[in-house]
């Protein structure tokens, strides 16, 4: 007897009410991607290890959802970790890549593609180009809710990495903390350019530590009237920066911008006499919508110029001043 014809098979199927069995591995890719989406990173990884089809789906179609990604690149050690539970780092199970030697960190460059993380923390203190190229590529399409980046040294490639983390992204709901350590004179102009490229974001905290030769002015600070005004205009919640070379006129513009823009809170440290004059001027006009406080008094580290913290807040925006 020969093989049953297609018609016979159909007839048998109908006669015996044989409905083809649906099994897990026959579900369409889209459904499997949906199921992956309900799993945490660890379970996604384990499911992907079950068979080659799931492995391939996980690699090509499933966006990783992470609580935190922490990348550190020092002179001797490098690592990129993800934490499922950022608040419990000690208990967290980490996805960890250690270098094979001081300069080689082998990493699957597609791992973070189109993934999401609540926090992206990067600290770079390298003496070569590789981390900038690798991290720029690695995090190019990784979405974050909060970015905390620390450029520990003056380095021309800082801009490359920074641009890859901000350009073409929608950061309206993102908080950024950017720290520049040991910045040199040649970094001032390029950093100002970078700040003027920032898209609209929720909050920005900027810390600039200048390590070069000081002058008797504040020209080594990256915050100027123009930069401050731009940043106020591009922050929808808070803008907290360090010392700035700001004038009374510049601060008045910032004050006016605060009234008309979405930004609700600005902190900046300026020359003490400028801060005092600004506060007096604002007090005289008794603006109802914006509140101005003169905060901590200090001296500029490089040249001893007397400085004063200014805290400018929209009235409807409640801030607990005890902590400032």
């Amino acid at each position, binding site marked *: 007897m020969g093989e049953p014809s297609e018609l016979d098979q159909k007839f048998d199927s109908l006669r015996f009410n044989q409905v083809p069995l*649906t*099994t897990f591995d026959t*579900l369409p890719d889209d459904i499997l991607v949906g199921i992956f989406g309900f799993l945490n990173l660890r*379970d996604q990884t*384990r499911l992907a290890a*079950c*068979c080659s089809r799931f*492995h391939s789906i996980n690699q090509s179609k499933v966006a990783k*959802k992470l609580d935190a990604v922490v990348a550190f690149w020092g002179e001797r050690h490098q690592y990129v970790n993800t934490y499922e539970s950022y608040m419990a780092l000690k208990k967290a199970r980490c996805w960890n890549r250690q270098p094979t030697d001081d300069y080689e960190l082998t990493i699957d460059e597609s791992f973070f593609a189109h993934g999401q993380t609540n926090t992206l923390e990067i600290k770079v203190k390298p003496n070569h180009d590789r981390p900038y190229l690798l991290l720029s590529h690695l995090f190019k399409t990784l979405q974050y809710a909060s970015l905390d980046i620390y450029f520990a040294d003056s380095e021309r490639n800082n801009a490359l990495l920074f641009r890859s983390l901000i350009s073409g992204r929608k950061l309206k709901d993102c908080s950024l903390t950017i720290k520049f350590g040991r910045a040199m004179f040649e970094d001032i102009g390029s950093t100002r350019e970078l700040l003027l490229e920032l898209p609209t974001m929720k909050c920005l905290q900027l810390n600039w530590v200048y390590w070069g030769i000081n002058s008797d002015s504040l020209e080594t600070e990256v915050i100027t009237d123009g930069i401050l005004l731009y940043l106020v205009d591009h922050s929808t919640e808070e803008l907290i920066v360090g010392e700035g070379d700001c004038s009374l006129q510049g601060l008045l513009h910032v004050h006016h911008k605060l009234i008309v823009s979405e930004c609700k809170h600005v902190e900046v440290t300026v020359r003490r006499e400028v801060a005092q004059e600004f506060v007096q001027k604002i007090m005289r006009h008794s603006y109802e919508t914006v509140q101005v406080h003169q905060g901590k008094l200090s001296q500029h580290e490089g040249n001893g110029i007397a400085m004063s913290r200014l805290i400018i807040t929209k009235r409807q925006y409640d801030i607990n001043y005890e902590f400032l």
Partner: protein
Amino acid sequence: RIYPLMRVTLTTSDGASVTVSRQLTKHSGFIEKAITDMAVDDNAVPLSAVAVDVDDATLKLVIEWLTEHRDDALPYPEKTDEERRADDIPAWDQAFVQKWDTKEDQQQTLYAVITAADKLDIKGLLDMTCKTLANKINGKTVEEMREILQLECDFTEEELAEIRKENAWCEN
């Protein structure tokens, strides 16, 4: 089986037909599109039959779920990846799945309902059944997952060794 406000007749892949109310079919993107494509009078009773690529037994389960969820808001709310969670299945849905999701069944029905929800474009049902499946494998080892889902490991020894190395972080 007849439901109130008989309006749409669905013919199943195994030749049965079921008539259901538009109140239920409005949750199915596939059926609603088919009705729209027919360009018939909305008040016509009953509407022409819509053929669905779902067997009778599975369709009955789908209709039972739709009957319970007939008043759910439409469109089904799109959730962001952050909002997607598997631990919020309503009690009725959990009991509904438990009725037929037995060990003997080996999840055949669950897979069939997932496939039906996908074909009929019923987002709420698809979401719920996918969550149910995700909950089954949540926290399980690779071997346990393979057993639950009846999967064959088709990796070569070399691939397996590489995967174990890559995944060491989640097995510690």
